[in-house]
């Protein structure tokens, strides 16, 4: 199941692992992404912690964790090719994976439908 945060991160939970990235909307808003500062594997994070920073030609934005847990893997492809986030923000442009998660923390997040409505409310 996929969820979105108000800060435009997406999170997909499969079994007990979560995968996190920024939404296509966010990637579009940021413009050409030039650098992604990735989180560090084995770090523990709680909801709202900074996972990393996305730099684009327009801005530098923190990426906040929509869930708590332990970082198990980061998308090392982004080091060489940060533009992957523009090409495929919700696919190959994922940022990191976490385990040790508590799915009840997803309750405060939006479903894809709710996120589309949320985006409309921003327009």
């Amino acid at each position: 199941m996929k969820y979105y945060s108000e800060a435009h991160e997406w999170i997909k939970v499969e079994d007990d692992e979560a995968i996190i990235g920024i939404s296509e909307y966010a990637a579009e808003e940021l413009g050409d992404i030039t650098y992604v500062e990735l989180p560090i594997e084995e770090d523990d994070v709680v909801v709202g912690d900074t996972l990393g920073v996305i730099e684009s030609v327009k801005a530098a934005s923190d990426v906040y964790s929509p869930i708590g847990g332990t970082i198990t893997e980061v998308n090392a492809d982004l080091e060489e090719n940060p533009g992957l986030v523009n090409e495929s923000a919700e696919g190959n442009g994922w940022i990191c994976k976490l385990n040790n998660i508590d799915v009840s923390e997803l309750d405060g997040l939006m479903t894809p439908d709710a996120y589309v409505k949320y985006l409309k409310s921003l327009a």
Partner: protein
Amino acid sequence: MPYIANTQEDQQAMFEAIACTDFADMWRKSQVVVPEPPLTSIPEGMSEFEVISKLRKLAAKNATELHTFIGAGYYDHIIPAAVSEITGRSEFYTAYTPYQPEASQGTLQAIYEYQSMICRLTGMPVSNASLYDGGTALFEAMMLAVRATRRRQVIVSEAVSPIFRKMLHTYSSNLNIELIQIPAGIDDSSKEELLNAVSDKTACVIVQYPNFFGTIEAWEDFNEQVHAKKALAICSTYPTSLALLTPPGELGFDIVTAEGQSLGNSLNFGGPYLGIMAVTTKLMRKMPGRVCGRTVDSDGKDGFVLTLQTREQHIRREGAMSNICSNESLCALNALVYMACMGKQGFIQVAELCASKAAYARELLLAIDGVEAVGGEAFFNEFVVQLPCDAAEVVGKLIDKGFAAGFPLGRYYPDRKNQLLVAVTEKRTKEEIKALATALEAVL
């Protein structure tokens, strides 16, 4: 230079705004416990004529005619007249932070060229636009290592400038950083002890090259071992020496800092000086300070802009890499113009003169009865000699004879009371060196 006036009308308006009648009333209402400062002890104003003659008298107390053999991190080099002629141009001299690319191509190009020269000099791939001085640059290097490794222990050799170590201590004393200082010998920064101190908590090891006592040490294997423990290797260096020495970038250092005064900046009682910082590509996004980059404009012409600004305070606010965002542009410009004036060959010649004159001076001083060698011959332009008595007293006696004979080590190293650190630059003549030896012999 205009100044901000504080007229009685201004004062009255300010007092009214805070509902006070006068200074005493404000003091009372602010309820501070210290008594009102006795403003009467501040002297009355003076006329321009009186001020000038008072300042002239003070300036006359400066010992400007001494033959100086003091180094200890700051060196008396020749500065070609062309340097101040160029850097004194009003376009460079009076403009404050002119960073808009559409208006400031000259300044930005100068910064870019400064960075390029620093990269060539240090053998590092990335330099920033400069920091305040050698000590703050070293502090910023330490903080960079703390950010990059997310560790909070720092190991510093005592063969690093005691002035810089004091600054590291002052800056970090409230930052939850564990600063471990390792005693060092003249010839040896105690590499084994430094490495033994490195743990999985260690962010970096800080050394000096050449070390504070002037000795040139080999660092390649050492840095490999530091890296094996996932810590960073930092060195503070002396730019002029790099004309002859293997650049620190080729020795495996991750961060190189330096006091840049020796590059075309006068000795000014402590400043303004020039903080040099260069880092590996891997660390560039965590580096503090401004960076100028070269690019092309819409017509394909070369142009210069500030780059990697997302590390900086005006973009990232509390997430910035440093809260010291100023650079020392004018001092960096001095360094740039100095290096350009000297050229590669001239710069190497300066360094060769420094080294050979220092070797000559050491030979003469060691020929004096009671003066002994401390440390070997692997020095650049600075070396330590052992005197038969308190080195600070000897320096005092030699001041009366017109010599600033060196830096008495006892001031920072209590067990080195009789040791004198002597520096020789290209500016000292053979006659001056001989005269120093004669004068030293006479006072011992």
